């Protein structure tokens, strides 16, 4: 059975239209269907003949890991979802994916877990069958659960040598006191090591979050909308709504600057993170889109501070800035790596002075317009495959469950003024709202410098 075949190869690449209808930035038609059990199905008509991306967006992530000792569990559970059901044990599930020639995987972030399958449109009914089955009737033995915990530990280990991981672990732990954003998505090492003992908890986790009201199905590409709705209703229709809502603690307001250091046990250049508590994602206010624009205008590759420190003085090898769209307040983080370790203090002073400056001075209006142009083109140029469109849409669906959010966000970007940028700098980039973490090479490291 060669489902895709050579015709598909010849036809699957097509255009990235300029802009959507009525001036909307998202250029593709959208279909939406809500089912009685709370499940939402979203379709995006993308011109990829014979091909469709099938995404299951679950609105659970590190954010809901409120129980003591359970950090990293949403990600761990993502792994368990590949361990099969009675109807399709893991090997059979995989045999189906192989037979349809799918590219399949999953990922977890602070706010969502996304399962994605890219395969032929003809295989959509089969995809729906195996996905509905595992989301409703996942079943694994204790032994399989324990084996998977080993793989997760391996996933932690593969990144453990990376100093950026060490820096972010410390940053999140320092900046948050009670909110689960305190830990990285992969979790604290001690919690990962304890995972094999949590079989019963895993059943509870599935029961709480793998429910239709937490899930949006997203199909992007070539599909028959009527047939899709029918197939989804048939396979997911009697999936029972849950009722669980995690009691996510609200992070109290920060009222004084925080600071921490990491001594890294291997050769590294110093890395500096200056982070500020930023607003939660919202399309009602311009704050979060405004900070996105700010990050590009004032800290992007052509900003005065980047030009000075990266290109002219060459004290650092990059500067990045920004906050992730998150359901609860994220961190707006300035990140840089210092090329000359003895310049660390000066770099820090320069960045803090720049934060002060942009809270007082208006951004250059040409740069503001160039930034808006850049953001729009970057967005449109990224929408060049069914998979990349699905990824973008999954991001917004996880935040609001509303496919129109993407258009609203870009309307807000368009509306951001230089005054907004200055006001937002003043409002959020304040010292009492700030956490600074510095990572430097431990004095005990042998050899290099």
């Amino acid at each position: 059975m060669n489902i895709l075949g050579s015709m598909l190869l010849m036809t699957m690449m097509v255009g990235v239209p300029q802009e959507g209808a009525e001036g909307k930035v998202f250029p593709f038609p959208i279909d939406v269907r809500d089912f009685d059990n709370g499940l939402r199905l979203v379709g995006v008509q993308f011109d990829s003949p014979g091909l469709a991306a099938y995404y299951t967006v679950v609105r659970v992530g590190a954010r809901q890991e409120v129980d003591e000792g359970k950090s990293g569990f949403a990600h761990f559970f993502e792994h368990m979802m590949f361990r099969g059901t009675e109807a399709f044990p893991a090997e059979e599930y995989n045999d189906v994916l192989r037979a349809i020639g799918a590219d399949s995987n999953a990922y977890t972030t602070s706010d969502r877990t996304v399962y994605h399958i890219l395969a032929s449109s003809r295989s959509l009914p089969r995809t729906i069958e195996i996905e509905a089955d595992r989301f409703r009737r996942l079943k694994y033995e204790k032994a399989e659960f324990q084996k998977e915990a080993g793989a997760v530990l391996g996933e932690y280990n593969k990144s453990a040598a990376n100093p950026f991981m060490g820096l972010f672990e410390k940053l999140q732990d320092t900046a948050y006191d009670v909110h689960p954003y305190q830990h990285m998505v992969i979790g604290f090492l001690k919690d990962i090591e304890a995972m094999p003992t949590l079989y019963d908890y895993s059943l509870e986790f599935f029961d709480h979050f793998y429910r239709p009201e937490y899930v949006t199905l997203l199909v992007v590409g070539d599909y028959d909308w009527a047939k899709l709705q029918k197939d989804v209703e048939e396979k997911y229709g009697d999936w029972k709504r849950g009722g669980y809502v995690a009691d996510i603690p609200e992070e109290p307001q920060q009222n004084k600057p925080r600071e921490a250091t990491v001594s890294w046990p291997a050769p590294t250049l110093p890395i500096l993170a200056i982070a500020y508590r930023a607003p939660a994602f919202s399309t009602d206010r311009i704050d979060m889109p405004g900070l996105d624009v700010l990050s590009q205008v004032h800290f992007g590759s052509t900003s005065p501070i980047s030009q000075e420190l990266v290109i002219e003085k060459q004290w650092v090898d990059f500067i990045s800035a920004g906050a992730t769209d998150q359901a609860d307040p994220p961190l707006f983080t300035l990140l840089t790596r210092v090329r000359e370790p003895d310049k660390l203090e000066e770099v820090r002073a320069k960045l803090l002075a720049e934060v002060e400056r942009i809270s007082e001075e208006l951004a250059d209006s040409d740069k503001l317009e160039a930034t808006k142009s850049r953001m729009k083109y970057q967005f449109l140029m990224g929408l060049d495959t069914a998979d990349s469109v699905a990824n973008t849409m999954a991001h917004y669906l996880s935040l609001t469950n509303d496919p129109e959010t993407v258009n609203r966000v870009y309307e807000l970007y368009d509306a951001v003024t230089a005054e907004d940028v200055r006001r937002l700098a003043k409002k959020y980039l304040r010292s009492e709202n700030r956490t600074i973490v510095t990572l430097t090479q431990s004095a005990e490291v042998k050899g290099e410098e």
Partner: protein
Amino acid sequence: MRWLALLMTFLVFASGRHAVGEERNTVLLKSPGNPLVSFRFVFHVGSSQDPPGKEGLAALTSLMLSQGGTEELSMTEVMEALYPMAAGVSAQPDKEVTTFIGRAHRDHLEPFFSIFRERLQKPCFDPADFERNKNQLLNFLTKSLRSANDEELGKQSLEWMMYEGHPYRHPVQGTVQGVESLTLDDVKTFYRERYTFGNLQIGLAGNFPEGFPERVREDFKKGLPSGATKAAELPNVARDKGLDVTIVERDGADSTAISLGFPIDLTRADDDFYPLLVANIYLGDHRSFNGVLMNELRAKRGLNYGDYSYIENFIQDGGSTFPVPNVPRRQQNFSIWIRPVAPENAHFALRGAIFYLRRLVEDGMSEEDFEGMREYIMSYSKLWAQNLDRRLGYELDSSFYQTGSYIQEIENRLRSMTAADVNRAAKKYLDRWDFDVAMVASSTGPLAEAIRANAKSPITYQTPGTAEEVLAEDKVIEVLELPIENVRVIPVAEFFEK
């Protein structure tokens, strides 16, 4: 001037062909419905041409073109010009070729092309850009590769050991002493001698206007010196002995990354490549549960995060499961990548990987497994070139290897392939014991001793609940006799030094 490439219309698959002498091919993929234009300019210039003692020269030269100013515009001005277009020019240097990749919206085609051509034809070789780019390479070698990414360190160490005395030996980014020795004059000379029109393959895809490709070609023909240079001579590095194990001693390596492999004498240009491709995907499909290694070592044993195998140079494209195009090589190797394992399981993992490879070599794939793989690869390979830019990359690679379009070639070959073809190819190319092995570890003495002595290496399960049949197989693996030829412990600081 004769056009050697087919000017493609939408829906027609391009097929570029090599030309002789100056007229290397041009690959065009015209797609009127697409508002983007992709540029992939492949220069037959790579790190295999770095002069001895100047390792890193090809990479640094490529950075000076992609991350430097031009005669007209400073680096800052180039960045300012590209910024509102969200466009860029990146260099992808590799061992045989260096590819300059750019993508612009059709709204910006002319201003983008003007910068793209300036960068490649009229770099200004500014001393400040030189310092910045040189530091970037040095920091990569000393602060990233040697200390921050044990998986990459394992892979690069494997090539460092496997290709001793060979132009593929050093990382594309060079060696520490090689990069330190580079001068701006070295870069200028290398550029002048190597960045010729005869060394260039032009790739364009998307919605370019009528006459644009001809204009681009003429412009580069005028703007670059003519002539082509010779590729580096590649000696034969095959050995015929046992395992040559190198333990890369790195303080702070809490888990052990392992890469092993041997050179193989085939590329996409060979008939046997295609059945071997099937055998390899069956053994170790990159980041999927289709592979035997992944299922046996990760899924059944929880040993680590992943276990894969390769029959050609494979660099993952971002967070996807697909490789980047345009890293072709005239000589390839077979390799197995075992992602970091707990140190106490390193010896077992090495044996385990070889055990499952041997099972493939000795028992082969069943008819049923073969049919499953054939179906899978027929469909899955179509996903490798989902957008025009990647497809252009694949077409350029097909031109490098002088084959038909790679993905189409796979389909054509699979149609008439049998399980016997696959099993014969696996036996012919993989029935070997002369592995180079690189293991990145902090505590090295006992590991070296155990491997040298072929000591029993029972797995230490981090989790309970292993299936009985797996435990039974463990008993065979833990005593698998490996023909050890050599075991060395080398401190990480000695790698990539000179």
